[in-house]
């Protein structure tokens, strides 16, 4: 079954990784960090840009009019300020709003300058604290009689490679069963920073922080068991980082030496060719 172009002798096969289109990772260019401050700044910038555009069109009209008068041609039409089209969809973007919830105001009052930002969006409360004071904030929301968030529902992180000054946001979703309320605490951390673990306060965080280490490569200080959880211990890279490709890393080397007839090899070559991977061994020079 072996064909001429398939080598029979065993040898190291080189994956031509660059040839695979899926290996080309398109890095994000924006920093989609939900924040009231950023939102307000963007809105203000948009208003200014729109006004500048309008002024420019007015000025263009004046020059065109003067030119037309000088040449004795009919005057051009004056510009009309564009009116935004009414939106007929059942969709209304929930814009971030200043915090009015008593929990957020209480947090800001107690923690003072350790709180970086509080806001509400889509009915969810967000409180961003300084990265060094996350443990203090967690202890406060758990033990304060007015807050009483006794359960850590979720903890996860997001990679922002395009951001300046930080690389990850780590979010803690807390639930108060007694008061039926939810709160999100957030910290922004740079690459290499190790936040304090939440395990002494919320034992749930054990596996969640292991998952964050496994998927995003953020280590937590004083964590009792900082090992990988979903991937094997010897895995390279962290899959949920934005630079991690969707194909390629971790492909298993098939031992084709057992494949006497060459059938497996041919199938693998065909499949790899369809995916744009060149499995051919390098030519001897």
């Amino acid at each position, binding site marked *: 079954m072996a064909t001429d172009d398939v080598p029979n002798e065993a040898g190291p096969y080189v994956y031509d990784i660059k040839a695979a289109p899926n290996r080309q990772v398109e890095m994000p260019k924006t920093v989609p960090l939900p924040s009231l401050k950023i939102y307000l700044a963007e809105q203000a910038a948009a208003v200014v840009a729109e006004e500048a555009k309008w002024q420019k069109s007015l000025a263009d009209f004046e020059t065109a009019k003067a030119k037309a008068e000088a040449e004795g041609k009919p005057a051009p039409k004056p510009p009309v300020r564009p009116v935004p089209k009414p939106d007929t969809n059942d969709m209304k973007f929930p814009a971030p709003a200043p915090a009015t919830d008593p929990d957020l105001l209480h947090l800001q009052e107690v923690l003072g300058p350790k709180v970086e930002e509080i806001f509400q969006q889509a009915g969810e409360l967000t409180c961003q604290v300084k990265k060094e004071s996350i443990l203090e904030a967690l202890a406060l929301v758990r033990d304060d009689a007015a807050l009483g968030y006794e359960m850590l529902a979720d903890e996860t992180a997001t990679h922002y490679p395009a951001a300046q000054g930080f690389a990850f946001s780590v979010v803690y*979703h807390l639930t108060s069963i007694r008061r039926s309320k939810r709160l999100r605490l957030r910290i922004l951390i740079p690459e290499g920073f190790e936040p304090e673990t939440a395990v002494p306060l919320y034992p749930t965080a054990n596996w969640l922080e292991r998952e964050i280490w496994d998927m995003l490569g953020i280590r937590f200080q004083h964590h009792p068991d900082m090992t990988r959880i979903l991937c094997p211990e010897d895995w390279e890279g962290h899959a949920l980082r934005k630079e991690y490709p*969707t194909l390629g890393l971790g492909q298993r080397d098939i031992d084709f030496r057992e494949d006497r007839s060459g059938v497996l090899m041919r199938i693998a070559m065909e499949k790899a060719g369809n995916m744009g991977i060149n499995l051919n061994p390098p030519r001897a020079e």
Partner: protein
Amino acid sequence: MFKNEEMEINMGPQHPSTHGVLRLKLRLDGEVVKHCRPVIGYLHRGVEKICENKTFFQGQVWTDRMDYTSAVANNLGWAEAVEKLFGITVPRRAQYIRTMLNEYNRLASHLIWLATHALDIGAMTVFLYTFREREAILDMFEAFCGARLTTTAFRIGGLREDLPPGFEKMARTFQARFLDCIDEYETLLTENRIWKKRTIGVGMLKAEDAIAMGVTGPVLRAAGVPYDIRKAFPYAAYAEMDFEVPTRPEADTYARYLVRLAEMRQSHRIIDQCLGGLPEGPVMAKLPKILRAEVNEVYHPTECPKGELGYYLVGEKGSTNPYRFHVRAPGFINLQALPMMIEGSLVADVIATIGTLDVVLGEIDR
């Protein structure tokens, strides 16, 4: 020669009663479990990474493959999380149909739990009875969306189609006989002496431990905490439904069995209300062809049959894909409490405790 050193054994990953590929490293002193360490990740497919490279419409397909015994509940969580991200209002008729299908899914999931849990402990018969009713539910899913397990039942903004003709008849036939079926399961198990011996006092998890470990769902409610997201943070049409949250104070495997059976009765009640009060109107919201996100983040919790299923989504301005997607899988968090529940008990009770947690490794490993 009498040896008294502790023995390490691996239970799994290929053990029939581990409901997937779960591996438990156990350290035993005779028959008593001294230490337990769950090893997971054998079914890891990187669903979060995949969904970040898919559009909001395509992502729902992957939620079917996480908890494959309750695909509709997973679909509902995804659809609602995306709708929350975009601020979409869903028509009321669609909300009712979603609620009804979600409750059918809860029944199907609880039936498969009861079947496998009883099978693990040694009661073979229950399996044959519960799969009869599950079949009827899957037939309804098939009539509604064409698939039995991987449903992808909903669309962002509502439903693709209204209920098919004949669906109501199927549903009413099912409703008429289902309560008797639950009574039938109860005659097999509730007063069964072997069942009671194998479950009462086994796999204890007290309320304060459960809350500290983040355990939700029937396991938490069987410890006496009436926390149900359908009541605490109502979604879909649950705010308009009249139902109770069953709880038990005992916090053992038998209590969880009773809580789940009581939940099935409540689900039946909710479906009755949905069928009776189905409002008229459209089933799909008016949306643009392509959904482009704004910068926003949402965490949307729903009450999956296993517990709190939370979807965390981050939207990027102008993008059709989620920038970040994370699943708070109920099984992942609940399984973390397993060592606490079985340390100090017998090896045979490990099987009963895994069964009572109702783990599905597809959603734990994602």
